[in-house]
């Protein structure tokens, strides 16, 4: 029964045409994906998008309806969960309540027939890594949420799997602890160099930790890339809205100017870099992130893309920034985040303003996309 997960399958995690159906419903729909060895990969999406099902198929807890899963050269699709070179950090940790922390962490090692002395060395080492060596003799229910979370990670990584799966690992922690654990998990991953596949619905969590994020929606991957790529150049309105906030304004391509497209937004011409246009036709959604806008009282000097005739309809001051809701001449509202980094006075509700931004911060999506898809 001794499975040596440390030397068996190694390499990239490859999902080929993976599908999981529950009755008529395709939870995961023809998903193909390569997760490079050693990366911190996040599957991000709203609940019900199929991310957890994907993870459970990799762990061996769900059987795929079709498709296959490889770790390096090894096909693990049919492999029993306890034979896979994969370990999981479960959503609510699933620590063994009747075993001490030491025995919880040692569980996987003991199953693989490792000698007591080696088990002790390995467990002590991982407890030191997560900075909780004093907890070895305690039971899980004597630990705080954050400690349990770290033990759950330790219990998995002590086995040196090819792949560590994290299923919403920080969901049960409060905000402050979550931030701290995000940094810690990222640090642990860099330290031990195991591939981490992290499932979450929290875009901030994914962006903080992951090298690569795949945004999932309805069982498919909407877009995959580094956090910067996804944020700066979303390819669909779902990604644009799910990752941060976006102002999506419908427009028509009216011409071309060097590397830029000229788009007509309700009569105003704005420039969009061609490299950041993912629309195929003339009808587009022009996207600008709220913090990219500059907001100024009418009459002040502006440059770049400019939209005039806007009126501030709501102001909320949130410390680091001020959030403005601005009503545009065509009746729709846009969001503007302004850093509170100068002594300029806050604009008041009802003020007539001009919005401007650098063309380089503009992206364009297919006009057939729903402007509100993925907004949360």
């Amino acid at each position, binding site marked *: *029964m001794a*499975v040596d*997960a440390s030397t068996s399958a190694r390499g990239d995690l490859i999902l080929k045409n993976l599908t999981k159906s529950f009755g008529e419903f395709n939870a995961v729909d023809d998903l193909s994906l390569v997760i490079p060895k050693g990366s911190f990969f996040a599957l991000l999406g709203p609940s019900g998008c199929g991310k957890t099902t994907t993870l459970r198929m990799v*762990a*061996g*807890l769900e059987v795929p309806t079709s498709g296959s899963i490889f770790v390096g050269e090894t096909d693990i699709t049919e492999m*029993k*969960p*306890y*034979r896979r070179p*994969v*370990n*999981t950090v*479960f*959503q*609510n940790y*699933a*620590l*063994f*309540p*009747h075993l001490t922390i030491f025995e919880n962490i040692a*569980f*996987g090692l003991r*199953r*693989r027939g490792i000698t007591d002395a080696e088990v002790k060395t390995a467990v002590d080492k991982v407890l030191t890594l997560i900075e909780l060596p004093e907890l070895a003799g305690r039971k899980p229910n004597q630990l705080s949420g954050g400690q349990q979370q770290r033990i759950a990670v330790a*219990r*998995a990584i002590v*086995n040196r799997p090819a792949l560590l799966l994290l299923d919403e690992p920080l969901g049960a922690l409060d905000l402050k602890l979550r931030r701290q654990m995000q940094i810690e998990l990222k640090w642990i991953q860099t330290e031990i160099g195991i591939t981490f596949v992290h499932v979450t619905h929290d875009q901030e969590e994914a962006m903080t930790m992951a090298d690569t994020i795949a945004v999932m929606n309805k069982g498919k991957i909407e877009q995959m890339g580094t956090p910067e790529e996804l944020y700066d150049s979303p390819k669909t309105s779902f990604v644009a809205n799910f990752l941060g906030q976006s102002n999506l304004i419908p427009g028509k391509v009216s011409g071309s100017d060097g590397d830029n497209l000229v788009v007509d937004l309700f009569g105003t011409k704005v420039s969009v870099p061609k490299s950041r246009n993912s629309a195929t036709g003339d009808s587009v959604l022009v996207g600008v992130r709220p913090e990219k806008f500059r907001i100024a009282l009418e009459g002040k000097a502006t440059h770049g893309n400019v939209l005039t005739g806007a009126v501030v309809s709501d102001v909320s001051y949130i410390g680091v920034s001020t959030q403005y809701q601005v009503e545009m001449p065509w009746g729709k509202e846009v969001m503007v985040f302004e850093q509170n980094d100068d002594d300029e006075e806050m604009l008041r509700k009802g003020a007539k303003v001009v919005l401007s931004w650098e063309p380089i911060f503009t992206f364009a999506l297919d006009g057939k996309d729903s402007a509100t898809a993925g907004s949360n």
Partner: protein
Amino acid sequence: MVAFKTTSAKVFKLKDNKSTLPYLLLLPGLLWLVLFFIVPIFSLGQMSTKVAGADTGEFVQGYRFANYIDAFSASKEQFFRSFLYGILATLIALAIAYPLAYAIAFKSGKWKNVLLVLVVAPFFVSFLLRTIAWKQILGEEGPVVGVLRGLHLISPQTSITSSAFAVVTGLAYNFLPFMTLPLYASLERIDPRTLEAAGDLYANGITTFRKITLPLSMPGVVAGTLLTFIPAAGDYINATILGSPTSKMLGNVIEARFFKIVDYPTAAALSFTLMAAILILVTFYIRRAGTEELV
């Protein structure tokens, strides 16, 4: 200042209420126990050391503790048989109830509630009737004997009623729900994700059961075995209806001493001995279970 005083007085009163409330809630149960358990136990204790008086059925206090020795030596055989049958019935019930409770807790899906009702359904029929029914089932024309004879497991002459077999299986059958329900309750509490986690950490099905499921269900095993063993060891109905003279249990002796021979002191002494023996055994068992040595 005045307002402050009133509030603090109110807070104090509230606290006061809270501290007496638990006792008030305990009161009805406590009264019940004193009236119907402590008082009878006390009078039974008194009875156990009495000696026969001038008339039949009249006993006077003689503080004769030798009653205990006499009673025990006269019914040693039944005494040990009670324990043996009790233990056997408990083991049989455990062997049947564990898989049943496991299936209900983890595998029954939408049938869970239906199955739980079926487990307690026998309680809708009186204990006595169920035992008589068991006699029919094991009887000459019943299905059990037919099958066993058909398989040549028993000879055509052998009957299985009026035997130790009938008594033990009868006990196991009658107390099965007492075993199943606590087992179910403790299995149901196990987070299925801990079982998945064990599989994720290289434990196969058997190892997962041995290392995770069984230890986590031990509270249910302990509760179930106690709830089965204690009444089974003290039972006399099964031995009366299903047994033979060679399968009498201590309950039968006590019954006979009380109602047929009218020897109250011996009956009382036996009752106490049985109670004490069960108590000692159970204490020992719980302590072992508490230290997880039973696993």
